[in-house]
């Protein structure tokens, strides 16, 4: 039979082991806590990297659009104005009047185009005015090229979000998709549909281009798609791609919103 002295002896050993186990549990909890904190910090850091990259790319895209527009549109209008003014013959008042009117008309059009361009200069600030508006604005420039027939449908009232970063990333993904269509798809028609329902935003972009085989994930093509998926994932979204060679491509992005 175990006496009291022995009982105390064993009690001290068992209780000490118990306390040490408790310490071990606390240390493991602290390790798990720090591990989760680290993962969260990495996610935040990745999000900030992607956000910065998106801001930079949206600005770069804007500059490209401005450059193209200055060269192809405003530049042409101003050249035409100069030509018209040069061709004025002061001895023929009626004809001169007509040419001056034409020059005024061309100048007014140039000013209008410059105003539009001025708005675009705000770059990523454009997204602050709301995603539907930013998309509409982007489409305006695409339509100006005259190469594409763009159909844009904006369904459901997209609520205002406090998180403009989400809009910016989604806007950049859309720009990337449109760039891909311009570069590779050989499309003539683009359908863009922005739908908001049940706390989710859906952006669908369809084209009637040459399409591709989704299994071909190698090279830059696959990288671009992965990049899109990575960006969507960072704002909690998903990207679905459907494409058939010769029958166009449809890309749908779902993100929780706002």
């Amino acid at each position, binding site marked *: 039979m175990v006496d009291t*002295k022995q009982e*105390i*002896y064993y*009690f001290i050993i068992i209780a000490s082991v118990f306390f040490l186990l*408790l*310490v071990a549990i606390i240390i493991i909890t602290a390790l798990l*806590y*720090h591990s989760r904190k*680290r993962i969260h910090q990495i996610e935040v850091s990745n999000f900030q990297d992607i956000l910065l990259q998106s801001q930079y790319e949206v600005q770069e895209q804007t500059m490209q659009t401005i450059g193209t527009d200055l060269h192809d549109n405003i530049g042409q209008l101003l050249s035409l104005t100069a030509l018209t003014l040069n061709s004025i013959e002061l001895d023929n008042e009626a004809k001169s009047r007509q040419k001056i009117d034409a020059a005024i008309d061309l100048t007014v059009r140039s000013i209008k185009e410059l105003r539009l361009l001025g708005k675009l200069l705000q770059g990523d600030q454009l997204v602050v005015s709301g995603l539907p508006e930013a998309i509409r604005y982007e489409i305006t420039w695409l339509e100006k090229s005259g190469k594409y027939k763009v159909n844009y449908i904006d369904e459901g009232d997209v609520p205002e979000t406090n998180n403009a970063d989400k809009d910016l990333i989604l806007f950049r993904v859309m720009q990337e998709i449109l760039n891909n269509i311009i570069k590779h798809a050989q499309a003539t028609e683009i359908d863009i549909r922005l739908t908001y329902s049940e706390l989710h935003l859906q952006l669908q972009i369809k084209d009637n281009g040459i399409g591709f085989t989704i299994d071909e994930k190698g090279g830059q093509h696959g990288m671009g798609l992965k990049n899109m998926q990575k960006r969507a994932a960072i704002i909690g979204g998903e990207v679905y791609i459907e494409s058939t060679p010769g029958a166009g491509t449809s890309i749908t992005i779902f993100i929780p919103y706002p």
Partner: protein
Amino acid sequence: MNPFYIVYLGLLFITLLLSGYSYIVGVKKSVYLVLLLFSTLAVELFVTYKFNQNKHFAFGFIYHLFNPVEYTFFCLYYLRASNVSKFKTLVKYSIPVYITLSLCISFFIYHIDVMPGKNTLPAINIDIEGFILFIYYTHLLFTLNIDLKKHIYGHPDFWISIGVMIFYGGTFVFLGLYSFHFKINLNQTLKLFSAIDLPLNIILYSCINVGLIWSIPNRKYIIS
């Protein structure tokens, strides 16, 4: 002499050297570890020397006096290591409170000014000290600022925190019942002291050593 005790003293000496080196290379908070370890080693060597000279030497009172010193240095180290200002204020004010409390326990409960109280170990003091330090260092462990590029195991205060937690967590029950157990069974108490207190002391100083090694800045020179 107990081999564990020799290992313990050796480890204590190595830890003292490492903390001194760590302070010299620029880890300013290590100064509190230097002071703590120096006083610990001085107390241990003095007790060992006196005890070897005279087996009846009443050494308990030295640990009573050392206890508030130990608490103070652990708190001062915490104050330099932690970055939670509210908790730091609490720790700062706890130092004079604890010193008073510990000396009151030593004088009014253990009566260290007269025999046999002079030869008691400050078990209650260490238990209270351990409980409070356990809370402080658990807090430090959870509030460590870990650099994204580094792992938690590379943080010196991670090791120092777990060392303190293991030591004071493991000795809590033993020290709580020390006086009582000492009276009813001296041999088993000494056996438990060797089985619990000394190994946990070794773990404590090993952890502090690992922490100090991580605290020493890693300088790489490129010679071209």
